[in-house]
Each structure stands twice: as C-alpha cells, then as structure tokens.
C-alpha cells in the first residue's frame, strides 16, 4: 500500500492541481477571514446568515479559529472535488488497467489512493489554517480584537481541536467524493453531483423541511467541521455521518473489488 501511496502522491503533486488548490484555499480563507474582521461593525453582520460575531467574542480563546471553522464545508467541497476527480479519472482515462496490472490487489489500490488524498487534504487544511490565522492576527488590531487569549493554553487547545474537526470534515466530504467517483466513474458527473448536492440541494432541503438536516450527510459532516451546531450536535454528526460513510464506503469498495475493468 505504501507504493500505491507514493505513486498516487506523484499524481497529486502535479503543478496544475497544486496551484489551483492553493489558489482556492488561499482565496477562500482570505475572503472569509477578511470579511469577518472588516465587516465587524456592519449592520448586515459579518458571518453567515447575517449573524454578527463581535470583537469581544473574537477576543475569546476560540476567536482565532472562528473564520477557519466556518470554512469547513467549503474546504470539504474542495476535497470532495479532488477525491472524486482523482478517483473517477482512472476510469475515464483508462489508467485503472495500468494500475491494476502493476498492483493487482484492488484493496491496496483503493487504500493507498485514499491515504495519499487524505494526506493532500491534511496539507490543504494546514495551509488554510495558516492563511486564516495569519489574516486574523493581521486584522485583529483593525477590528479592536484582543489576541492575548488566542495563544493561551486554552486557545492552543481549541486551535488543535478545531483543526482536527475541520480535517475530519474534509476527510468526510472527500470520502463522499471518492464514493461518487467510484460509483459514477466520470470526473465531471461525480464532481457536479457531489458539489451541487452539498452546496445547493442539502441547503434547500434544510430550509424547506424542518429537522431534515439531522439526516443529510453533508449537513452532518459540516457539523463535525464546525464542532457542533445549534440543533445538531457534534456527536450526532460524527456518529450518523460516520455510519453513512462507512456503509457507503464498504459497498463501493466491494463493487470496486468485484467489478470488471472493461474500459
């Protein structure tokens, strides 16, 4: 599996993918973190759905990760696209047959591929945290936010915890993307379906059907990223979201192992 991991890493290191991911992550974190601080006195709010996070709230130990945590779902969507495209392209390009001739154990292919993409997601989340934290420190003075508690013992603990949660959520969305890639075997279809489902359809369903977010995979994974949300606990997100991914993952892994490679 180590050889699969290293081979897959070579593909993930390609400049176009690395640069576009850096651009997406830096852009995302720069936008969300800047808006949080620059619009702190705005009557329209500085957070999602018009909510306002005040300077005093941002001065608490968890203030440093407020912006970073709020981007968990979007970082997850980036991961979903990467995991889905990297998996499905093996079918659409016909390269899966090359991989299976060189490594006939399909579970090792799947496992190594997943691990390498998980590592890519880890680097991506680290970059996001660094960008968001840097901007937070940079704009804190402008927004009259006191940063003393951010670097306290509690602040650093929250920082680590939030990073872990965002990484778990990123992995969750990425797993969803990989499942779609294996099922649909087309990068465009799996990326489109996955991102439209998470960004659009689940949001609409949540607005229309009360309480349905307790059962939607994207909402559940997003809850893990945010460390829990009003009406949807972190534990439920972790448990139910985890069960969804485990069951779906097992089904597609079985299909991947059994399915003929005809293209």
């Amino acid at each position, binding site marked *: 599996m180590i050889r699969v991991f290293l081979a897959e890493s070579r593909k993930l290191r*390609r400049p176009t993918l690395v640069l576009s991911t850096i651009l997406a992550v830096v852009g995302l974190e720069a936008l969300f973190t800047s808006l949080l601080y620059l619009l702190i006195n705005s009557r329209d709010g500085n957070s999602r759905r018009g909510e306002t996070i005040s300077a005093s709230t941002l001065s608490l130990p968890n203030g440093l990760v407020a912006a970073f945590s709020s981007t968990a779902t979007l970082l997850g969507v980036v991961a979903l696209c990467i995991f889905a495209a990297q998996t499905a392209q093996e079918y659409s390009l016909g390269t899966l047959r090359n991989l299976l001739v*060189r490594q006939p154990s399909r579970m090792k292919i799947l496992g190594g591929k997943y691990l390498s993409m998980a590592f890519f997601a880890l680097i991506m989340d680290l970059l996001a945290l660094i960008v968001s934290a840097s901007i937070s420190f940079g704009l804190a003075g402008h927004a009259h936010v006191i940063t003393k508690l951010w670097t306290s013992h509690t602040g650093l603990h929250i920082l680590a915890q939030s990073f872990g949660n965002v990484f778990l959520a990123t992995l969750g969305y990425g797993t969803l993307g990989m499942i779609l890639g294996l099922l649909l075997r087309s990068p465009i279809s799996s990326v489109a379906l996955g991102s439209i489902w998470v960004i659009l359809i689940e949001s609409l369903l949540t607005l229309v059907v009360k309480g349905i977010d307790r059962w939607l995979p994207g909402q559940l994974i997003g809850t893990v990223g945010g460390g829990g949300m009003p009406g949807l606990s972190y534990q439920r997100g972790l448990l139910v979201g985890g069960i969804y991914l485990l069951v779906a993952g097992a089904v597609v892994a079985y299909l991947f192992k059994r399915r003929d490679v005809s293209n």
Partner: protein
Amino acid sequence: MDFPAISVSDLTKNYGNRSAVSHATFEVPMGTVCGFVGPNGSGKTTTIRMILSLISPSSGTGTVLGHSINHPEKYLPAVGAMIEGPAFYPALSGRENLNVLATLGGFPISRVQGLLEQVGLGERGGSKFKTYSLGMKQRLGIAAALLPNPKLLILDEPTNGLDPSGIQEVRELIIALAKSGTTVFVSSHLLSELEMIAEYIVMLRLGKVIFAGKTAALLSRQAGILVARPEYSVDLGKIAEIAKIHGHEVTIENGEARIISGSEWSAQLNRLAFEAGITLASLTAVSPTLEETFFEMTGDSQ
C-alpha cells in the same frame, strides 16, 4: 521451465446471453513470439483482460508463467502489458507517467530514462503526455510495458498509429526481446508484420479459438497457388481447361492463370502444357500469406 507462458482452458466470458469468449483453449510456449489475431469483436481484448485478471472469467481456467489466473499477484510482477492503446495521465509528462508506474510496481526509477530512449522518446520525456502524437503515445505505452523487464510481454495492437519506421522499430524490438528469452504475446491487425515475427499463432473468430499452433502449420493447411503465364495470352483458356480437367480451381487475371494447387503439381502442369503445344513464359508457386489464410479461415471480407 517446462510450463507454457500462457495456458488457458475452456476460458469463457459471458455478458448476459452474449458470449464474448467461448471455451477458449490454447497455449503459448515460453520464449516464443505468439501472434493473437481475429477480426474486430472476436474477443481478443477480453481474453487478454482475463489473462491479466482485469476481467473475471465466467468459467474456465488458465495459468500465466505457471501461476493460476486467480492469483495475479504471483505473475503480474513479471508481466508487461499494453492493452487497447496507451492510457496515461494527460497533465503529467511521459517520464512522470512512467515514474508513477515504476513507483507502483516497485521498479527502480533509474530504468525510466533508459526505456524512454529505447522507444525513441529520450528527448520528449519531459513533455506532457497530452502533447504527444499518437505514435509517441504508443511508444510510451510500449516503454511502460517494458518497465518490469518482463518475462511475458502482452501487447495489444502495438503498432497502431506508428509510421513505417516506427513499425519496423517495434518489430526489431520484439525480435530482440524474444532472443533474450522474453515471451511476446502480440495482437495485431498487421498480419504481414506478424507473419515475419510470430512463431505461433492463436486465431479467434466470434469468441472461439479456430487455430492455435505454429504459424508454419497454419500456413501449410492452406493450398498454395500456381501462377502460370503462357508465352501467348491466347493460350490462357487452354491452360485453364487443363487445370480443370485435373480437378484444380482456376481463375484468369492480368494475363495469368492462377491455379489452386500445391507446388508439387507444377512439373506435371509444365509437361501437360508442353504436350498441348503451349510454352510457359513463367510458372511460379506462391505460398499463402497469413493475411490470405486469415481471410479464408475467419470469413472476413478483404
């Protein structure tokens, strides 16, 4: 090693009611070049995919390099394959594509540059795969197949898209590999090329093996042709009559009588023509080519 490089027995692949490969049984001896021929859709690629464990057979058994096809991990490290054209990552360079496969297979990366040079891509190895011509893509596919320094090389249409000099290079490469002991199982539509290099032939038609054995044995099964050109073309009719009286089919074209017969009848024909007062300007025995035999056996139209 007294086992064949490839041995399949009753290998069958069904898709619903349709049989892509039906009870295929053949052997490819170790250290030979074996041509794998058949019309489009005859089941060649499906058979190759079953041998490489990409497709599971509906029934039947097989061994590759002495190991069951149910345990591909035991033989695939010694097998190189290019199936249904070269498939690589377009955004990676040719070299990086080979690096990916070398890393995956546990082969030294240092082999990559040598292989690129061997297939004539030494200077273009750094270019992205998507910028390659069809011939260059094909060459990269062959280089990838050679990565494991294979004991068995399986090539599916390796000369697709290559120019005449490229085709010649592939032919020379296959001959050189065979000389070094590599078994080469090659599917191609260029039957004249195969005739030059393949010692063995496996021929498929509609998913069934219709011949498996030595190329020479295959060609000897087909009747030869005697081409007789009389000094005066007015005698063509008389020659045709003589041939028909002695039970041979004959056609007249381009001032020649083409008589279906082995070369052993040429002396008698010469004598009979002389007795009939005909002088033959030339009399040539022509052996059937693999292409003619293929069309004859598969019923494929030319």
